[in-house]
């Protein structure tokens, strides 16, 4: 038996709030938000739908089959600098990958054989990573399922380092789909608030470099525990009872060796939709009914980044653990849902090194939770 810990050695991201993680983090602390109309980002089918877009992202689909999702993933991948003597594995997640290739093929000529091939063999999964890789597809929990795969490979000694990236660019299917199911906000996304009216569709890539380190090491931030479950209930809606989400959270906390009362805060999935936020807050109220717990969501600021969303939450939890402050859901005061301690206005101080919960939920009922905390 070989006991190890999993250190979150590096994090990296590209999103609507910035081209790197430090910039995004500072913007989150300031309660900034990035939103513009879909039509201004090249999506005229649903012109008025608000989106949170990465400024300057090249959305061209090239004959090399590369498009915006690939470029986002590559940008994040290049920010990591693992040591050369490590045994690295790469783990990826995406929802709609380069699905705008379909739009390209329906609109533009000449068609190329490589673009048709890209519909059968996903160019993102085929070309993004330079070494052994595994891709996981589970909608908006994809990033965390990929993180779990990396963590378990590290635990099993299959690699010394795992680089995990979740990536999704805006896509015509995604924008039209969320709009048509009635899930998009008409104005400002207000997660976990009584007057919420839907998601802000976002895009971006988030990455985590996990490393197996000695259990004696007391430095850095650790991935302490992970839990997962599936409602197995409905294609888009969460199970009303939240029973399976609760089980995933309890499992993550238990595996982390923590108690519920030792969790200092939650970086929630908090999409801003009626059903998701209702179920999520109900579970938090049930689990922390006595002491309450600070809860935040970053989706009002940078939108719902789809498969990257769970990893973005892990990045926020990691940075909050390091810095001792959790970002607010918005700069202004918010009309928080009943019974939750929603962080609003200013960042919330928490003890440095405290354990935090990051949550993701996805279409099809998948739930993922992980506990991040200081080495001590």
């Amino acid at each position, binding site marked *: 038996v070989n006991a190890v810990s999993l250190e979150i050695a590096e994090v990296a991201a590209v999103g609507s709030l910035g081209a790197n993680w430090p910039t995004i983090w500072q913007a989150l602390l300031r309660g900034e938000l990035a939103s513009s109309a879909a039509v201004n980002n090249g999506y005229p089918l649903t012109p008025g739908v608000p989106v949170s877009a990465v400024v300057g992202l090249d959305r061209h689909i090239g004959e090399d089959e590369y498009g915006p999702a690939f470029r986002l993933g590559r940008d994040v991948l290049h920010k990591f600098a693992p040591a050369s003597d490590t045994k690295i594995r790469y783990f990826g997640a995406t929802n709609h990958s380069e699905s705008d290739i379909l739009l390209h093929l329906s609109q533009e000529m000449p068609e190329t054989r490589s673009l048709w091939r890209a519909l*059968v063999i996903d160019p993102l999964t085929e070309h993004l990573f330079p070494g052994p890789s595994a891709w996981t597809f589970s909608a908006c929990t994809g990033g965390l399922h990929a993180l779990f795969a990396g963590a378990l490979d590290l635990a099993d000694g299959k690699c010394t380092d795992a680089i995990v990236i979740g990536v999704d660019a805006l896509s015509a299917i995604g924008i039209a789909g969320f709009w048509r199911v009635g899930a998009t906000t008409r104005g400002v996304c207000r997660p976990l608030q009584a007057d919420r009216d839907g998601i802000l569709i976002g895009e971006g890539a988030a990455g985590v470099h996990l490393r197996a380190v000695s259990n004696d090491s007391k430095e850095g931030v650790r991935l302490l525990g992970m839990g997962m479950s599936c409602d197995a209930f409905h294609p888009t809606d969460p199970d009303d009872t939240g029973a399976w989400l609760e089980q995933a959270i309890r499992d993550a906390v238990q595996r982390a060796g923590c108690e519920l009362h030792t969790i200092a805060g939650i970086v929630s999935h908090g999409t801003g939709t009626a059903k998701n936020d209702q179920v999520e807050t109900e579970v938090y109220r049930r689990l922390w009914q006595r002491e309450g717990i600070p809860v935040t969501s970053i989706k009002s600021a940078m939108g719902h980044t789809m498969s990257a969303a769970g990893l973005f939450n892990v990045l926020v939890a990691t940075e909050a653990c390091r810095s001792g402050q959790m970002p607010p859901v918005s700069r202004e005061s918010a009309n928080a849902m009943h019974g939750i301690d929603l962080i609003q206005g200013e960042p919330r101080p928490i003890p440095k090194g405290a354990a935090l919960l990051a949550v993701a939920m996805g279409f099809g*009922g998948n739930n993922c939770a992980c506990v991040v905390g200081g080495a001590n």
Partner: protein
Amino acid sequence: MLCTHEKPTSFPLSLAAGFDSVANQASFGGVGKCEDAYLAQHSNIKHARHFGRAPALAGATAARLVERVGEPKLRTGLICNGGPWNLHASWSFLSRARDAGPAYLNPIHFAPTLVSATATAVAAAVGAHAFSYVVGCDYFAFFDVLGRATQALRHGYAERVFALAVSASDSSIEAAVTRAGLLMPIDVGLGFSVGGLGTGDLSLLEVVTEESSIANYSLTSRYDALIDGSRLTFPCKTPISGTEALGATAAVLILSAAEYHSRHRESSEGPEFIVTLRNSKRFAAAILRINLS
């Protein structure tokens, strides 16, 4: 997180074919041509007609697997191999949005545009509450599926995992592969229940991705597959010779090798055997044991 590098344990594998294939050069079903009428009747997933054929085939396969191993009273996870299984739903959805306008889209059609819907739709049908996701999309995908399944079992995330190997063509995939100059995928629907109760038809000892990891099995019979481009070489008869099975390839190779190994057990080294797959970029192998004569 305290993690233990646990000694690999073997897991029972119980098998089910998603349909009765005919004239497929193999004694096992689930490979060849599945009739659409059969799929329509047996897919067992809600709104099946909005999905492509592969998700429907996954549903039919899971239903047969449940018949074989019983209702999932155990904490069950579900993993499918990936592939272009959402292409039909995506293409239809986007065409409708473009031609008629997004207001004329049926909201029910949105979820099937995700490749993960293949797994989650089936999970809802069979009550798999531990997890449900899709893994990999290249020829090695089913090795990845089995690897993740055993990992989840070893670390206590499930008591049983339904590992589904699916491949199918439909009008959208047919159009794309034709224009891309690729081979048309054949229908594959193979279900593996990994872990759980009983001894299983096979035992899965290990799934590895490095050749050095099988050095300990030097005396074990090996069935080595090589993929050069899309051309497959395999030492025993397999129903996918000269065809295309994309992410379900490894599952068919495993069953082809199991069938051959079972038939030639007296002349082979024992009940254990290894199936390997290699191309210019990757290597993967599964170490298995025949449990039934």
